[in-house]
């Protein structure tokens, strides 16, 4: 897909994220909107994984460490054909497999996550197994910036560099917000680049809503042979909806009827703008 096509795709994804969160009356709206462009690029442009090869030991793997932004993942997986989108009508309902965090009950999901600070270590094991078996698959994990306060991330970061797992790419969805406040007010995790570099990683920074930039950096493979890859994706929480952008309350705010209408209208306008081009 071209960056333009990807951008159009993201508008569609954002509509669906809001639709299902609105229906379920639950969800992590802001974070799903901040990471959706990253997931879009990963699944549509970068990763070798789909419903046809999900059982293959050679598939690329994606572990969503920031499990709470699961609505973004559901929408993308449905679009990839892992399950019918109508399944999402049951989001968060009694006995639905589409719960508020990823589980392997849902086709296309690699690992159950939700407690923060787990994805990087699991990804380390997957990437190490690839090295042991001389397989060429890649492992991607998506971390929140607030999540980086969890010490387990740094245990894993050290070990991943020690074992030179250059087939692993961690992406930080750096939207500078977490549930309580701005990340730097809650607990400053910066400077991220210097921290990861000191841990032995190669770090690249990218605009997390720039499709060409994301595609380039994520497609690249190992930035440097023998070093793990960190992509700091600078994002905006609530991206795409004017009144949600960078506003704390939309962390897990569910839009009411009026907000919902306005949000969908904004997305429709963005779409029309595209068609006019």
């Amino acid at each position, binding site marked *: 897909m071209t960056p333009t096509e990807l951008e159009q795709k993201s508008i569609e994804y954002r509509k669906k994220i809001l639709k299902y969160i609105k229906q379920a009356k639950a969800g992590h709206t802001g974070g799903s909107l901040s990471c959706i462009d990253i997931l879009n690029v990963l699944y549509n442009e970068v990763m070798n994984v789909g419903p046809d090869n999900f059982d293959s*030991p050679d598939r690329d793997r994606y*572990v969503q460490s920031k499990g709470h932004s699961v609505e973004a993942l559901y929408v993308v997986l449905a679009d990839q054909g892992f399950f019918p989108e109508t399944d999402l009508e049951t989001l968060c309902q009694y006995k639905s497999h589409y719960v508020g965090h990823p*589980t*392997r009950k849902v086709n296309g999901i*690699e*690992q*159950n*996550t*939700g*407690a923060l*600070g*787990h994805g*990087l*270590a*699991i*990804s*380390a*094991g*997957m*990437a*190490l*197994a*690839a090295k*042991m*078996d001389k397989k060429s698959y890649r492992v991607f994990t998506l971390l929140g910036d607030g999540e980086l306060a969890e*010490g*387990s991330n740094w*245990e*894993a970061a*050290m*070990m991943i560099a*020690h074992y030179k797992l250059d087939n692993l790419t961690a992406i930080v969805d750096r939207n500078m917000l977490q549930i309580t406040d701005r990340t730097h007010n809650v607990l400053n995790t910066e400077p991220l680049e210097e921290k990861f570099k000191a841990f032995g990683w190669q770090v690249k920074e990218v605009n997390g809503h720039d499709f060409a930039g994301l595609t380039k950096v994520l497609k690249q493979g190992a930035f440097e042979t023998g070093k793990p890859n960190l992509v700091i994706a600078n994002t905006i929480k609530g991206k795409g909806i004017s009144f949600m952008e960078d506003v704390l309350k939309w962390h897990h705010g569910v839009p009411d009827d009026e907000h919902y209408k306005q949000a969908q209208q904004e997305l429709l306008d963005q779409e029309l703008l595209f068609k006019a081009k």
Partner: protein
Amino acid sequence: MKDMELGIPNLVAFAETMEALAAEDKDIIAVTSDSRGSGKLKPFGERFPQQIVEVGIAEQNLVGMAAGLASTGKKVFAVSPSCFLTARSLEQIKNDVCYSDNPVNLVGISAGVSYGALGSTHHSIHDLAVLRAINNINIMVPADNFETQKAITTAAQLNEPTFIRFGKRPMYHLHSSATKFELGKGIKLKDGSDLAFVATGETVYHAYKAAEALEKDGTHCTVLSMHSIKPFDEALLLETANKCQAMITVEEHSIYGGLGELCASTLMQHGKALPLKIVGIPDEYTVTGPQVDIFNHYGISPEGLYQTAKSLLLSELST
């Protein structure tokens, strides 16, 4: 059981079994957190350098990383002192292993009060209680070298989330090599209808010695080794309770949430009541010192169990 001979530490039996398994299957991987020395895995590491992964002193990463490895089809044994493995990395066990159903074998070495003199930081008397409350994990507590070897090979074959814990002291052989070992089934070591000792792990031998002493007084005891805590052999427990007049459970674990309470709840829910005493570590600031002294202190020794049996039978007679 005939002549009871002193064997090797279960820890060593574990390490030897791991070597035998690894020689046959290159997917067997040991993961250690600076624990290959404590886990007696140095020979394993020298013989199979491609099948051992060191993560340093980082138990959360030990278990999370092991889960990722296991997700790719590796048969992973994450080896660490039980005190750290089942506390520091409990959330990784709960989520990354059990909930995600990644078949990691968690090996809790120097469990219970094996590190008795090192203080409560190094005691592991909570592990059975916390893990019993987590869905999707087998729990095995082998009593001797034979049970250890069987527990490890069973775990490798099953390929399911499994926790196995044992100590580091040489253990007496309780079984012949013809004994049947199965996950979910206890083993009857001795048959008698006066009193039942239902024990697990390294305390089984003590229960057996107490039963031998009681035998001399004309009290006939059943002794069970309940190596499988989860799944649990309810049928054997109930059969034993129906036959015996009283029961003593024995474990190197808190009296809360371990074998004793498991037996009590199983019996009550099956409408079976009999005089019962739970012997283990009470809820207090745990005494320290060599494991054997801690056992003596809390009556987990052959002498202590003998006395407990006497008073339990006496109180039963007086009612």
